[in-house]
């Protein structure tokens, strides 16, 4: 349903007006996992706007390199790399490569993840392992590699994890991602505690619905525009406002913030009413397990 015209919709400033100065990350290098597209690329662009050098890591080298070229066009030093974040040797090699080309990695954005609608009984062992281990093991491996290097240098740093708005409610029709994204949020708090003595901050954004080219929901018939009305805020998220919040947690402006999970979802995850539509089990939904396809 379209949003009625008398409703008031809060909108962010345009991409050209970031919330921090162009040199706030000057001299710093951020490594963005899953940075080749979608929300990872949005984070990479936000860090680039603040003057960071950006190492873009993705499973697909061509996409990572294309993203690096896009960041270079924004004026950033950038480098694209391929890496499977489930493999510790590859993670260590990627950090080596990033540091060789761009200098010490001082900031880390964990975005690598996979997600698709599927009934729990239809999730293959391979699919379960892929979705959970990219997010859970990948975040652990990248974060611990980052922390060891920061601790060895005696310098602090900041990590931002891309979690999801459904981490508190469950996500029927998406059991693998429901488990994976909550693990990211709970490890955020534990790692923040582990590394506070080393001045490494760890935070997460529990992100709502930010449609982009590679999101499953972005493929919805009629495009994401037809989904604006389902969000209390009256719109889906603009991907640059997600990138900004993620990057901002890593700035000195929020130097005292750690162990936090900030929900940015336009109220999507919150209850709207005591009365709800009749419950239809994901298996019986005509439009697929997420209920719209």
């Amino acid at each position, binding site marked *: 349903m379209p949003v009625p015209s008398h409703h008031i919709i809060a909108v962010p400033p345009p991409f050209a007006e970031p*919330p921090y100065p162009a040199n706030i990350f000057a001299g710093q290098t951020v490594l963005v996992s899953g940075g080749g597209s979608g929300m990872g690329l949005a984070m990479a662009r936000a860090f680039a706007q603040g003057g960071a050098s950006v190492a873009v890591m993705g499973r697909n080298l061509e996409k990572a390199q294309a993203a690096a070229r896009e960041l270079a066009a924004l004026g950033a030093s950038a480098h694209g790399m391929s890496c499977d974040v489930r493999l510790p040797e590859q993670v260590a090699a990627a950090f080596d490569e990033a540091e060789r080309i761009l200098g010490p990695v001082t900031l880390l954005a964990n975005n690598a993840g996979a997600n698709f609608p599927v009934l729990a009984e239809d999730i293959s062992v391979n699919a379960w392992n892929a979705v959970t281990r990219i997010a859970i093991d990948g975040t652990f491996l990248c974060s611990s590699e980052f922390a060891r290097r920061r601790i060895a240098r005696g310098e602090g740093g900041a990590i931002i994890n891309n979690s999801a708005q459904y981490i508190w409610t469950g996500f029927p029709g998406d059991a693998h991602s429901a488990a994976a994204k909550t693990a990211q949020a709970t490890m955020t708090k534990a790692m923040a505690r582990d590394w506070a003595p080393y001045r490494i901050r760890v935070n997460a954004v529990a992100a*709502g619905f930010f449609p982009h080219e590679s999101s499953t929901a972005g493929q919805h018939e009629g495009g994401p525009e037809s989904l604006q009305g389902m969000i209390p*805020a009256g719109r889906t998220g603009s991907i640059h406002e997600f990138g900004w919040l993620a990057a901002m947690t890593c700035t000195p402006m929020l130097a005292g913030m750690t162990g936090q999970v*900030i929900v940015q979802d336009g*109220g999507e995850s*919150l209850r709207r009413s005591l009365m709800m539509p009749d419950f239809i089990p994901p298996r019986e939904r005509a439009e697929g397990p997420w209920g719209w396809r």
Partner: protein
Amino acid sequence: MALMGWLDGKTAQLVGESPAIAAALAGQGATLVREGNCDVLVHVAVPTLARPAHELSHAEWRAALDIGVDQRFLLARAFAAMCRAERRGGAIVYVGAPEQALGSDHAAAAGALGNLTKTLGVEWARDGIRVNTVLTREAGETLGNIVAYLASDYAAYVTGAVMGVGLDD
């Protein structure tokens, strides 16, 4: 630090004491007002004394709930009515101590406030009014900056959020 005019052209009412928040709001371009119509309402509750529940009189209990949740609700409701009358959105940010930082009186008030935040965030979403809460022991620059962010259009997609600042929040 990095003042970017997040709140240029906006008016903000800060209820309660917080030099860091006042500095951040003004530093980001907001005009602080004491009363009347404004774009932003920030309410900072004075921490109550931490005492065991069996040592609290009902009057003391009531005072903590009054500052911690009742006044906050009534102020927000008046603010939202004003926004609606003027056909414009607004932002409300509540600030207080973490739920378990003080006594049972504060725990009750802070829990009530958290779910009030989520409720009003949805109830007023289509009025363009956002409602968020920071529950923290911190009082410095980071608190000021996160409150100014939540008050600004940069947080246009953040509503109904309850967050802390430091590790033990």
